[in-house]
């Protein structure tokens, strides 16, 4: 027993642990900065935020100790049990949780408040890893997709019913893992393209360059370029590439020349080229008897169809408050006191930090509570304001290194369970980072989710700690064997 104990400690990935300690420490100082007030109760007083966060950090180390003491097989053995327990908890939460700021996601146990959704992340990761690491499992049939997607969708539905759509959205991170495990890249491409086209066509919906609608033109051009790249990647042919590129540029050059005499819509040229491409793709597929070209054509047609249905969907399917939120993020509505207030104030706070920042506890914007949710969802503001560009960049880099480190470790796993679990961990961190910092710097919509290790709150800190350290425990087991 004693020999095993020493091996766990000596086999742990030191880089990940150091990054963890670094981020948690930086997070605690940011919470001090964000919750500092003139009548502060002191940092170590448990009734204040820094004090209680300190207690949660301390308890996290207890959790880490427990996790590392467990046998590595424990997690795969009990994965379904943990998953079932968490789903049960999520369902109970829907019915018993009180309404806190419109959200019904908090369980109140005595003086403690726990958010089960934070713990669902590692539970789903464990269950997916267990299911997909079964001997002979291949992600290539209907049944396997249905089961995997059901595992992901169940907590999503529960959490949406708790009115925490933002948290639910984070479970889409598992698609990155599914992609790694064999899901078609077209699904991801389709999803990401849809979001990009949606944003572009809305943002530039009413912008005209002479008589050319900019949004429409941009999307059509991107579709054209992507179609070309995909077609090229299937069967590289440099002559074909040169002809296509030359032809496209020539067509636009002719168009520019024509505007000297008559003003017209460049979208016509894009349409013409699009039709030519479509014809050529049909010709290729018939000639080579390859259906992939038809799939490319389908992608192109779906993209164009999507582009022309965005306005309809936006106006008729989305609810007004969703419309405004999206519009504010896209900069279509200037409304600093309304919905855009959070983003605007958060940009002001970060922007006012400058290169080196105002210094610890000197941030006026965060100290004076201009940024809402500044200790939780908008904690990155405090970093930006007090530690400046240097500090904020270091935090982004630290997260990036941690995520990449986990990806690398995951790929090293001989054990499929550990590999899949590792991909889940890295992807979850990645999506949280993407959405949280994106929101704070005004690049993505305002979605209320925490920044791992930084945001104030025990549930989120423990959820991410457990998520990370189960993987580190599994990784340590790799070397043990």
């Amino acid at each position, binding site marked *: 027993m004693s020999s095993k104990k020493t091996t766990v400690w000596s086999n742990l990935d030191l880089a990940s642990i150091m990054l963890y300690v670094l981020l948690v420490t930086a997070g605690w100082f940011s919470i001090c900065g964000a919750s500092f*007030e*003139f009548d502060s109760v002191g940092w170590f007083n448990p009734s204040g935020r820094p004090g209680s966060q300190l207690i949660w950090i301390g308890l996290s180390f207890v959790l880490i100790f427990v996790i590392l003491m467990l046998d590595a097989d424990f997690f795969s053995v009990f994965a379904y049990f943990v998953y079932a327990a968490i789903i049960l908890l999520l369902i109970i939460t829907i019915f018993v949780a009180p309404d806190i700021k419109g959200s019904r996601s908090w369980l109140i146990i005595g003086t403690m408040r726990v958010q089960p959704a934070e713990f669902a992340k590692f539970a789903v990761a464990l269950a997916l890893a267990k299911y997909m690491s079964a001997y002979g499992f291949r992600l290539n049939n209907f049944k396997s997709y249905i089961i995997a997607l059901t595992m992901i969708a169940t907590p999503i539905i529960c959490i949406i019913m708790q009115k925490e759509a933002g948290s639910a959205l984070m479970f889409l991170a598992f698609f*990155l893992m599914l*992609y*790694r*495990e*064999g899901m078609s*890249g077209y699904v991801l491409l389709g999803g990401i393209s849809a979001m990009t086209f949606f944003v572009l066509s809305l943002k530039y919906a009413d912008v005209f360059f002479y008589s050319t609608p900019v949004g429409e033109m941009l999307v059509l051009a991107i579709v054209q370029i992507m179609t070309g790249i995909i077609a090229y990647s299937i069967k590289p042919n440099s002559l074909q590439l040169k002809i296509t590129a030359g032809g496209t540029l020539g067509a636009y050059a002719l168009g520019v020349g024509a505007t000297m005499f008559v003003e017209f819509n460049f979208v016509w040229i894009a349409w013409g080229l699009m039709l030519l491409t479509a014809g050529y793709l049909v010709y290729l597929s018939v000639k080579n008897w390859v259906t992939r070209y038809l799939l490319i054509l389908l992608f192109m047609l779906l993209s164009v169809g999507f582009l022309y249905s965005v306005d309809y969907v936006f106006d008729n399917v989305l609810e007004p408050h969703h419309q405004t939120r999206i519009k504010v993020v896209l900069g279509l509505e200037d409304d600093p006191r309304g919905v855009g207030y959070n983003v605007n*104030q958060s*940009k*002001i*706070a*970060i*922007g*006012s*930090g*400058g*290169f080196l920042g105002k210094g610890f506890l000197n941030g*006026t*914007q965060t*100290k*004076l*509570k*201009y*940024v*809402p949710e500044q200790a939780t969802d908008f904690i990155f503001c405090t970093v*930006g304001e007090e530690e*400046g*560009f240097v500090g*904020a*960049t270091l935090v*982004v*880099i630290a*997260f*990036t290194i941690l*995520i*990449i480190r986990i*990806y690398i470790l*995951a*790929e090293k796993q001989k054990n499929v369970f550990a590999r899949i679990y590792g*991909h889940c961990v*890295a*992807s979850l961190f*990645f999506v949280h*980072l*993407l959405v949280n*910092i*994106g929101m704070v*710097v*005004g*690049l993505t919509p305002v979605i209320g989710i925490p920044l791992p290790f930084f945001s104030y709150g025990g549930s989120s800190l423990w959820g991410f700690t457990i998520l990370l350290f189960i993987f580190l425990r599994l990784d340590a087991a790799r070397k043990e064997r």
Partner: protein
Amino acid sequence: MTTNIKYALERRRYVLVAAVIVVAIIFIARLFYLQVVDHEYKAWADSNAFLKKTLYPSRGMIYDRKDRLLVYNQPAYDVMLIMSEIQPFDTLDFCRAVGIARQQFDQRIAEIKDRRLNPGYSAYVPQLFMNQLSAQDYGILQEKLYKFPGFYIQNRTIREYEYPNAALVLGNIGQVNKQDIADDAYYVQGDDSGRSGVERSYESVLRGQKGVEVLLRDARGRIQGKYENGAYDVAPVSGKNLTLALDMELQAFGEQLMSNKVGSIVMIEPATGEILCLVSAPTFDPSILVGRQRGRNHAMLEADPLKPLFDRSVMGTYPPGSTFKPAMGLTLLGEGVITTETHYSCAGGYPPGGGKPKCHGHASPLSIVPALATSCNSFFCWGLREMLDNRRRYPTVQERLDRWRDVMRDMGFGRKLGVDLPNEKSGQIPNSRMYDRMHKGRWASSSIISLAIGQGEVLTTPVQLCNLAATIANKGFFYTPHIVRSIEGTGPDSAYTVRNYTSINRDYYEIVSQGMRGAVTGGTCRGVALPYVDVCGKTGTAQTPFGKDNSIFIGFAPQEQPEVAIAVLVEHGGFGATVAVPIARLMLEKYFKGEITPEHKYHEQYYTNLAIMPRNVI
């Protein structure tokens, strides 16, 4: 095949890692743009967090020449409320305490909440509910304030007046308008500034210098403390105190005598140019333009057909009538048109004008001294005719008239004297161009002979007339009349300590003052004579387009080492001797003796009660 797929899938990690790196680069680029490239956010952050609270200095106080306090500051109480702190309370009880009706209360609350009317509204920041509550109302409210959570009292100062007099001299303060803010960066919306009188002309001295306190303000507008413990705060500098040349007792007496009349009394100390009293009638109590009733009362005064806000002493322009004759005489003597020996005949009228202007019975022919004493019209008409029609000095009548005008301007007519009160008028002394226009270039003395007797195109202000008397008293020079004697110990502006000499020899002033002495001893204004001092004077009875003539008197006393010059003008008072002269006598008696002797108490009462109002008003 399986290994191939496995290999292909392993390659996908690069896609994932690349995505992470791309996102990180986008974030860092965005942070660089927000924090390093774009400076706009920094400015926004400052305006977010710093509340620069203005500290208002106390406005300078105003004293009269005998160090009587005239204007000072008094605390007033603004009722403020913080919407978010209001709890249900007895609205009717509150309304009774501040003396408003329930509807007014509801209306006021609605106004406060209306962001169009009140753009800075926040439920967490004190809002002005009612301004300038008097001390009595404040006392009533103070007792009950504990019952009305969310309501607060904020102190401020308002002007308080010790005397109900000199409203137009002292002026009043009011909120600055858009133009003031555009003209002077010192002001912001809601500031007060002097609107009229000394309050306005000495605004920059009285107002002091605003201070600033830099406070930190949170997102809800609540104050969280001082920035850097007040390191960037600036203390306000109090305004300077003014001492006026005005003698408040004399001013009050003048206003009393002018009650129920329209006109003006001006008294100047010739040795300094200090204005001792500056009465414009009708007038009002300056304290009615302070506090909550200011707007209503100001509108009422503006609507008054007698125009009590119009300072007749410096802004009213009147034909001077015969009081212009001393100036005429001086001009004729100075230009060598006449000598003391020059005699003109008078046949109850000016013969070249077919007996017009008419004159009254006196010895004829006569020289300048008796002409002034008896106020002979013909003498000055002959003199002006000689001056304008004699080709010896200048070839054309235009040049001769312009010479006349230059002399008049030297004496302070037809231009602003530079009195330190706003909106002084210049009056009018005609020049040749004016008559060229009127008479198409063909005119001579006969066309404009009424100038000689201060009628026609000549218009003067009462302060200009008094200045003429002061100049004659000084025998040839005057100090620019001014109302402020010193600014917190330092004397008046240097512009008021320079002797302004006219172009006329001192000896001629001697002659004119003899004529004016003669008018008092045996001429038109015997009524002004005082037993203990030699008064010199000149009456005027100026024709007006409608109604009775204006009754005017100018004079000074004593004849040698004069102490005081006076001008009295009563609109539609009739002959100069009937109203203006007795009022001047009472003023002089008050000045020299400090009170009215018992045998003249009757006059004081009579002229105080005498009502001479324009016909269109009565």
